[in-house]
């Protein structure tokens, strides 16, 4: 009976705890009728603490229970929670005790071992912790390795094995969930170890994770400088400076805080100047420095940098002013003395420089600056060549002779009102000269040149006519066979010839493009003009001959013919220039394009008209703009051909689109095309 009653008590309390009725549970437990064995009582107390979220007391309960040797063990799932609360209460040795106890009763997974390592580390037994961690490393699941790897890195860092620690950080930090503070420490470590590329990666990572602040951008700038990426260094230093300048402490903080922010700003400014100098823009650096020093007149380092820039640019008066203000401030350093020496050498006052040297050697006997000045003085005496005093690496003080001084006025830099007329005239002249050359090259090489221009297409037409005649086709839609073939073939050949000519235009005129007056666009235009003229004359001649032989052919409207020719020319020119431009970067494009345009010979309506096709195939074939143009031209020569099938708008969107694309590509790749 008693047994039953006690159980009843236990269930009562535990159910109340689970229902979070803590007052009632407490009243029952403290009440006189409550009876339970000490182990069970501890269990209930522990449960109470866990549910009421008071881990501190729970730990106490657990420890009392251990001490008294009751058969009690907290459930493993509560252990991390308990340990965390111990760690946060800084009761590290108790934590260690707890985890060891838990291990002794079977809590032996990798988590338990990691907890042990953690408490070992917290109780400052770091070497032991690291050793243990190494042992259990193979048991740790891969998903947890980054975090624990970072932890090991911290241990190694604490043991002052920095290179090994940094190796681990490099490997694991990216995938870990480490805190901001740890990232900052790793960045510092990377910079101490001078591993600039890794430092850059880690800074970028922490900016990505925690946002950018003054320190990170400043470090990034510093690292970029070390890597030689001066432009980037400049950008980051500016960012850091801007963030620092926005700091509210600057306006209303305490003096000490304000000084820290001021120091940050100065540091950023120094980096900006360094980056400018790294970019060989000492004049820019000087302009910036003047502004900085005006804002912050007590910045001695800035003033010294200003002096350096002034000396290297030859602004000696300004350098002396800055020197005077530094003396006024009561500032003295070996570097300032060195600069003073350099300045005096630069203006040719070698005695003064020697004086500065003596003073420098007296005050800082072992400073390397003394030797440098000594060297400079020797050089100054021996070389007596003040023009090339080296201050910054790679840059001399340049005295620009009068004759080379910049002499332009703002008017010179603006295009004049008649510039467009000059440009146009120059284009026309250059196109004219090129037309001369192109016609010579293509038709004037031998006396049969121009004859060949007529015979070649005539022969092609003749062959096709013969083939169709053999098949037995003699008329197409009221057109005779030669007329049908000629109205298809000559326009199509205009397109393919222009396309081919565009591909070769720059290459075969490379030598002539060395004339500044000859622009690439002139070469293209000249070739197109020549080809269009020849083809059009040929076309007219052909039609005239057919007209004569057959005694009158049907013809209505010259417009579709002209539009068709224009469209073919625009497509050929635009497409050709575009492919040529792209081929200057990817040379294989030209070959692919050349081969694929050959297919167009069979699909552009040279041998057929849209009317011959079944409607669904026709719609598909009419997507080809060349088909549209050829049909356009042909529709003028037969009353049976319907120009309702032709979509003028569609056709000319292609023409204009290709032309614009071609010209745009030419603009972008102009230099590349010429240098190929």
């Amino acid at each position, binding site marked *: 009976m008693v047994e039953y009653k006690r159980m009843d008590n236990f269930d009562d309390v535990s159910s109340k705890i689970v229902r979070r009725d803590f007052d009632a549970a407490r009243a029952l437990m403290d009440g006189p009728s409550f009876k339970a064995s000490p182990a069970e009582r501890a269990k209930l107390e522990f449960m109470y603490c866990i549910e009421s979220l008071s881990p501190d007391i729970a730990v106490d309960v657990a420890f009392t229970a251990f001490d008294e040797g009751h058969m009690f063990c907290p459930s493993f799932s509560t252990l991390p929670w308990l340990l965390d609360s111990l760690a946060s209460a800084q009761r590290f040795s108790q934590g260690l005790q707890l985890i060891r106890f838990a291990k002794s009763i079977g809590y032996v997974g990798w988590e338990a071992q990691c907890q042990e390592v953690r408490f070992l580390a917290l109780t400052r037994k770091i070497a032991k912790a690291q050793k243990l961690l190494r042992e259990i490393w193979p048991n740790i699941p891969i998903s947890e390795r980054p975090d624990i790897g970072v932890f090991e890195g911290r241990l190694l860092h604490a043991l002052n094995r920095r290179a090994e620690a940094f190796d681990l950080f490099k490997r694991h930090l990216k995938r870990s969930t480490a805190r901001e503070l740890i990232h900052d420490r790793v960045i510092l470590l990377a910079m101490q170890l001078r591993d600039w590329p890794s430092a850059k990666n880690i800074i970028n990572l922490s900016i990505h994770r925690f946002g950018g602040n003054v320190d990170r951008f400043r470090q990034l700038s510093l690292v970029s400088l070390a890597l030689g990426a001066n432009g980037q260094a400049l950008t980051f230093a500016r960012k850091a400076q801007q963030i620092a300048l926005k700091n509210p402490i600057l306006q209303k903080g305490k003096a000490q805080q304000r000084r820290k922010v001021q120091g940050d700003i100065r540091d950023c400014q120094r980096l900006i100047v360094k980056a400018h100098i790294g970019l*060989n*823009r000492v004049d820019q650096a000087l302009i910036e420095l003047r502004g900085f020093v005006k804002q912050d007149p007590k910045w001695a380092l800035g003033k010294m940098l200003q002096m350096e820039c002034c000396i290297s640019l030859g602004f000696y008066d300004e350098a002396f002013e800055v020197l005077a203000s530094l003396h006024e401030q009561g500032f003295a350093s070996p570097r300032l003395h060195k600069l003073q020496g350099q300045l005096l050498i630069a203006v040719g006052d070698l005695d003064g420089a020697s004086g500065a040297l003596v003073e420098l050697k007296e005050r800082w006997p072992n400073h390397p600056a003394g030797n440098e000045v000594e060297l400079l003085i020797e050089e100054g005496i021996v070389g007596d060549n003040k*023009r*090339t005093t080296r201050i910054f690496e*790679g*840059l*001399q003080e*340049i005295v*620009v*002779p*009068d*004759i*080379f*001084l*910049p*002499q*332009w006025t703002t008017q*010179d*830099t603006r295009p004049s009102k008649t510039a467009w007329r000059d440009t146009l005239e120059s284009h026309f*002249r*250059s196109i*004219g*000269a*090129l037309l*001369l*050359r192109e016609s*010579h*090259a293509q038709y004037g090489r031998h006396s049969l040149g121009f004859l060949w221009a007529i015979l070649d297409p005539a022969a092609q037409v003749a062959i096709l006519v013969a083939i169709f005649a053999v098949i037995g086709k003699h008329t197409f839609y009221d057109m005779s066979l030669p007329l049908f073939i000629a109205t298809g073939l000559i326009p199509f050949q205009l397109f393919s010839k222009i396309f081919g000519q565009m591909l070769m235009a720059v290459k*075969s*005129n490379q*030598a*002539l*493009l*060395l*004339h*500044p*007056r*000859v622009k690439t666009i002139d070469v293209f235009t000249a070739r197109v003009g020549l080809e269009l003229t020849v083809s059009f004359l040929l076309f007219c001649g052909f039609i005239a001959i057919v007209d004569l032989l057959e005694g009158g052919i049907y013809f209505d409207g010259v417009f579709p013919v002209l539009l068709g020719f224009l469209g073919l020319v625009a497509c050929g020119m635009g497409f050709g220039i575009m492919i040529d431009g792209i081929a200057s970067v990817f040379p294989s494009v030209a070959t692919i394009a050349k081969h694929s345009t050959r297919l167009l010979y069979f699909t552009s309506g040279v041998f057929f008209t849209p009317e011959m096709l079944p409607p669904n195939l026709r719609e598909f074939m009419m997507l080809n703009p060349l088909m549209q143009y050829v049909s356009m031209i042909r529709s003028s020569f037969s009353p049976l051909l319907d120009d309702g099938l032709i979509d003028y708008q569609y056709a000319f969107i292609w023409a204009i689109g290709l032309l614009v694309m071609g010209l745009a590509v030419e603009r972008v790749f*102009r*230099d590349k095309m*010429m240098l190929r």
Partner: protein
Amino acid sequence: MIHLINVEKYYDTDVGRRVILNKTNLSIPTHRRVGLLGRNGAGKTTLLRLISGVERPNRGKIVRKGNMSWPLGLGGGLHPELTGLENIRFITKLYDADLSTVIQFVEEFSEIGEYLKMPLRLYSQGMRSRLMFGLSLAIDFDCYLIDELVGVGDRFFREKSKKAFTDRADRSGLLIVSHNEKTVKDYCEHALVLYEGILVPFDDVDDGIAFYLKNCELR
């Protein structure tokens, strides 16, 4: 005058950025004889192409006042497939000069004779440069841009071309690009040295040569 206004030039190659010219502000007089010295590969020819207007700078602007020749260099400006006469015709048309006077001058100056009717690819190096000099001298330029060319040809022709250029020194200027300080000393009054992306100007040609020898060659 050639005004270089904030001009920067570089190439982005596979191995990183190669700077030819850092930000530069200079005016180069075109009525004087100026020599541009620089080591092989320093970017002299590129600079001349920039100045003549064949290439564009990456930043900034180049303003040219006056009529300037094309960069006269080996194999530039004349088409190898065209005959000498055709080349002459092309250039006279391009620069709007009178054909018959140009042909007459070139025939006298270059002494090429019957070869004028042959394609240029059959010419020797010396004949080609003779033709080019003759052509450029036949057209009145305010300034001649010359790329390493004056050393070509035999002694007699060199004498002749030097005389031709000095004869017209009052009318037109020269800008000679060379890695050879002797050429520059022979022809020029002023010097520019292209040194690590910086165009260093010198009033006196000897100063420039001294700087060139000190900083560029002994490295």
